[in-house]
């Protein structure tokens, strides 16, 4: 098997699900997330950027996922049907900031619904900042935006999310330790 096919095979098998999870944060649609990942893989390996080790190839694929999404990912999806994303159902009483003793599922659902309210660039900023753990400057670089624009997107997005989720620990762009409720987080492999 050629080198790039080895890398493609290994990347799909070992990191495929993580890539879909990342794409899902951006798209909010499982099928669209899978399509986005596949398109990003094809783009990356067509350009010969997938022949290195898996970690390096994955970085290129994540970048391709992001740019494709931000620039208006519409493949295989009718643009008019995207409007439903703005019509997010109200969270059930057990969801959201007042979640009861089963907060993981309910919070996850509430976050999914709240994310769907965000325009693509705001959503991308939130995902890069709080999932990819990038600095504001890195987010700006990744999205080819100014730092000020990214801050504005993050601020607007945070306001939108908090309108649904209540206070967001760690959503402030100040260092995380400024927030009392933020615990020390050991980041897991994504």
């Amino acid at each position: 098997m050629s080198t790039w096919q080895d890398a493609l095979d290994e990347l799909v098998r070992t990191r495929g699900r993580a890539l879909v999870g990342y794409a899902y944060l951006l798209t909010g649609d499982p099928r669209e997330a899978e399509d986005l990942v596949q398109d990003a893989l094809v783009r990356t390996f067509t350009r010969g950027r997938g022949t290195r080790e898996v970690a390096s190839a994955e970085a290129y694929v994540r970048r391709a996922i992001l740019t494709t999404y931000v620039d208006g990912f519409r493949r295989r999806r009718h643009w008019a049907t995207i409007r439903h994303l703005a019509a997010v159902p109200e969270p059930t009483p057990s969801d959201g900031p007042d979640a009861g003793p089963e907060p993981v599922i309910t919070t996850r659902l509430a976050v999914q619904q709240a994310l769907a309210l965000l325009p693509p660039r705001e959503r991308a900023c939130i995902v890069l900042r709080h999932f990819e753990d990038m600095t504001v400057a890195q987010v700006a670089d990744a999205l080819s935006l100014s730092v000020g624009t990214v801050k504005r997107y993050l601020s607007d997005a945070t306001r939108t999310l908090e309108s649904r989720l209540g206070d967001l620990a760690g959503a402030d762009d100040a260092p995380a330790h400024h927030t009392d409720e933020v615990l020390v987080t050991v980041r897991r492999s994504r």
Partner: protein
Amino acid sequence: MSTRLDLALQEVAEAAGASSGFGDPETPGTATTVHRLAARVRRRRAARGAATTAVAASAAGAVALVGPQLTREATPAGDPDADPGECRSAVADLPSGPRDVLGVELGQRDADDVAVIDPAGAGQDLGTWLSGSADLVVNVSQIPDAGVGATRLRFLLTQDGVVLGTAHEPIAVTPLTTDEVLSTRLEGIGAWTTDHLPVYPLEETDRRWWEVVETSGGALRVAQTVELGLTACDGSGALPPGTYQVYATTVDAVGTARGAAGPWDVEVAADDATPHALPDGFPQDVPLIDGRLVAAHRHGDGWAAEIVTPGNDRGTVAVSLLAPVALRSDHVPADAMVLGPPYQDVVVTRAGVELPGWAVRAVASRTPAGEPSVVYILTARP
């Protein structure tokens, strides 16, 4: 209580990944997924390579002529006494004895770039096409005993039992096995069969590749790409719109046809040249595909439009209509998509084909009612 956004996002991502079958190493479908991805990469690399070659030839002052995928045969028009398999001959004249069994499976590539293959009569037709050629895949598993000297696989486009179009491909008379194709042509990705099924390969060219495709029943096949020209064999040009039946036969060195497989239905799409009733302000200088306009409105600081039109190749056709009026550059960015000749210097970025004033994305889609369509996204260029 506050929500830990980073942890919540992580939970969302992990749950989405866990519920997806994509990349699951325990799922047999993952091998198929990798096959398909590798085939798409190969295809795009081949297209980029062809464009690069054409650019090099142009730079050297040469005139690069890229011929059609299939060689048209010079057959006489309207000959009622034509030999079997020739232009204007009757399909019923094709040899069909016990030594004339021809094992051919044909398939189409849909608008989402996915190919499905089947024998004739399995309910898998060959799609609808706008551009004058059909993007097919073929697997030849048996050639007629009586056709030992077969050197070409000939496709026949017929209507009412009469051959109206022909195209042929050189074919090897010594078969490979499926395993050999997987190990030598597809470089061993996921040997999914221990069957030593014979495969008679078509002549390999720069624009042909092997791939693994599914039948509609879920079985896997190795297959080669074929671009079938939808052209009349009497020299009158493109076949008129309508449904045609495709047959395959083999032809030996002296032109004798042996064996027959088929039919599969293929449709040549009718052109709907109804003028589009575009809203005021919609750019008039953006060439849109013919069809029925179902939406056109502002989209951010640009425009969006959707046109219902048939054709597996509707997305490709829409892009090809944009190319002649697109901006061209001697320095196409490294990350730009490259179109085939003569548009290899057209700039196609992630925002689409760059026209004066607009970047235009045109993608095959479907309306909520399921009608095939092309969606245009126009983004203002600085």
